[in-house]
């Protein structure tokens, strides 16, 4: 028997039986669609989490980064002495180094006067530490006492800062310290912070009087253009104290992602959500296939009496499962696309629908349907022609 007939005929029968009862087909498709949307949303939220967690380091402009070994992630850093960063200047390949200060602090909404926590970045205005044009342009202005830049992509709970600035209302408080918002930039929110503020290192110390310039949170190292990053990293890690990690750019991103994926329970929660979505879908598809076999058992028994082999019906069941996967995935994909856009506009999290994500979810759904098919084939034994006639 050639391969085309081997799969084509049972698949065709499966298809004809599926489309015969439209109502049931719609119900079955909805079951798969439900699982599909659930998985898409879980995956979307998870990826949004990772992407936004790493949104700050993404814009950092450096070749190597120093961070304390006890810092689990950038949003909850452990300080280390600035001298540790300065020691790296001893390596001839290092061109310049800059410290970055990080802190969470409540920001008072200019309009409603309510306070909400955001992330404050303090940097040396002489450096080009962030690869964001608005920040580079405003560097000089940030030298003024008590001036900050506000992240336009912060959540709306901080107030319509752009409109307020245009209206001249630019004075508010961070951690009960009076500051002036002199401009805007765009970075994006993360799960750790609903908004961002950037200011000079000196202004940072004024907002956080308990901090001092010698205790830094992140060290940014820029190398000479011809230097090998890997080699310098190896040299520096043998020279520096053990309490610091020295990361390349990619390693820093990975470190941040790993924190959210493994150390924070959030990665697990979304993984669990994905699995639960698949289990629910599995049960639904199994029920559909099981009922389908039960309803068709007389027909299958007839075909068996005509000389069809048992394996033919197994292929029919798997073909049905395959069609259900496709039929549920397509509307599920489109529906999720809409929800992604909705989520992006409502919760300000980046939720891109990438090809690889679509493929991953499709493979999940396909394996879910195939597993359901695998579980349902035992019901085929009910189609025994001898008991039927």
């Amino acid at each position: 028997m050639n391969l085309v007939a081997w799969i084509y005929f049972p698949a065709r029968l499966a298809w004809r039986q599926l489309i015969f009862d439209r109502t049931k087909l719609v119900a079955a498709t909805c079951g798969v669609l439900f699982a599909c949307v659930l998985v898409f949303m879980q995956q979307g939220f998870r990826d949004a989490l990772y992407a936004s967690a790493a949104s700050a380091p993404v814009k950092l402009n450096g070749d190597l980064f120093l961070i304390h070994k006890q810092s689990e992630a950038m949003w909850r850093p452990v300080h280390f002495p600035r001298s540790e960063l300065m020691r790296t200047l001893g390596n001839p390949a290092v061109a310049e180094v800059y410290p970055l200060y990080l802190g969470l602090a409540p920001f008072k909404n200019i309009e409603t006067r309510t306070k909400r926590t955001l992330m404050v970045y303090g940097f040396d205005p002489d450096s080009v530490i962030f690869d964001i044009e608005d920040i580079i342009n405003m560097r000089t202005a940030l030298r003024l006492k008590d001036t900050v830049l506000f992240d336009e992509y912060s959540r709306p709970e901080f107030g319509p800062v752009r409109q307020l600035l245009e209206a001249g209302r630019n004075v508010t408080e961070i951690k009960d310290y009076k500051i002036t918002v002199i401009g805007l930039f765009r970075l994006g929110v993360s799960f750790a912070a609903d908004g961002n503020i950037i200011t000079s290192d000196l202004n940072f110390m004024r907002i956080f009087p308990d901090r001092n310039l010698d205790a830094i949170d992140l060290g940014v190292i820029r190398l000479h253009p011809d230097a090998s990053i890997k080699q310098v990293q190896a040299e520096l890690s043998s020279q520096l104290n053990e309490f610091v990690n020295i990361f390349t750019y990619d390693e820093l991103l990975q470190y941040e992602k790993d924190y959210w994926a493994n150390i924070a329970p959030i990665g697990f929660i979304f993984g669990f959500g994905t699995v639960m979505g698949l289990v629910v879908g599995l049960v639904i598809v199994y029920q559909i296939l099981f009922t389908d076999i039960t309803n068709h058992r007389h027909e299958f028994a007839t075909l068996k009496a005509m000389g069809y082999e048992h394996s033919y019906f197994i292929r029919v069941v798997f073909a049905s499962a395959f069609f259900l996967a496709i039929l549920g995935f397509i509307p599920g994909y489109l529906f999720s696309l809409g929800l992604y856009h909705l989520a992006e506009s409502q919760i300000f999290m980046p939720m891109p629908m990438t090809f690889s994500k679509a493929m991953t979810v499709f493979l999940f759904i396909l394996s879910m349907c195939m597993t359901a098919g695998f579980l349902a084939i035992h019901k085929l034994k009910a189609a025994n022609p001898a008991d039927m006639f």
Partner: protein
Amino acid sequence: MSLVIDVKNLNFSFGSGALTQPVLKNVTISIHKGEIVLMTGPSGSGKTTFLTIIGGLRQAFHGSVMVLDQQLINSSEQVKVKVRQQIGYIFQQHNLLKSLTALQNVSMTLEMQNRMTEQQRLDRAAEMLKAVGLGERLNYKPDQLSAGQCQRVSIARALVGQPKIVLADEPTASLDKQSGHEAVTILERLAKESQTTILLVTHDYRILDIADRVVELEDGMIKER
């Protein structure tokens, strides 16, 4: 004439131990090529059981059942499948696939044979449906056809593969007198044309006239009439 069905001392019983219920006792019957044999008998006499054993649907363990030169006693699944493929089965109910049209239902028999193209299969199935008088209803689904028409579709389905044997289990039971007679007349005509052997189980005495031979099964034992 050669023997297509040769049954010797077939014993069959349901259940086991103290609950053993013998159904067929020492059944011996030979059927030649091209013969039309009607088997009658009261309900519960084991007619259907006998038919399912001949058709390779039920496994028997004692005696000898040679069908188309294959021994079906203690046979493997492959042997049974091979025998089934050479047999056309007509059931008490039409047992058509309700999601398929008449044409597609008849084609299902031919899909097991790989020699044909799709077009050849459909042509052959259409031809067969014309032969049973349903040339106008090729694309009707079973629920759009009457019971008599459905039974004729199932006759077409049984015969389209040019089987060597047709087994029919009370094919007229669910039909009125006229359509029942019509159905078996068509069956007889087509079988005679192609020298097909027919073993037909019935207790419908209105159709005895088509038979070459009538045997009676009573209490699991064969009586020639």
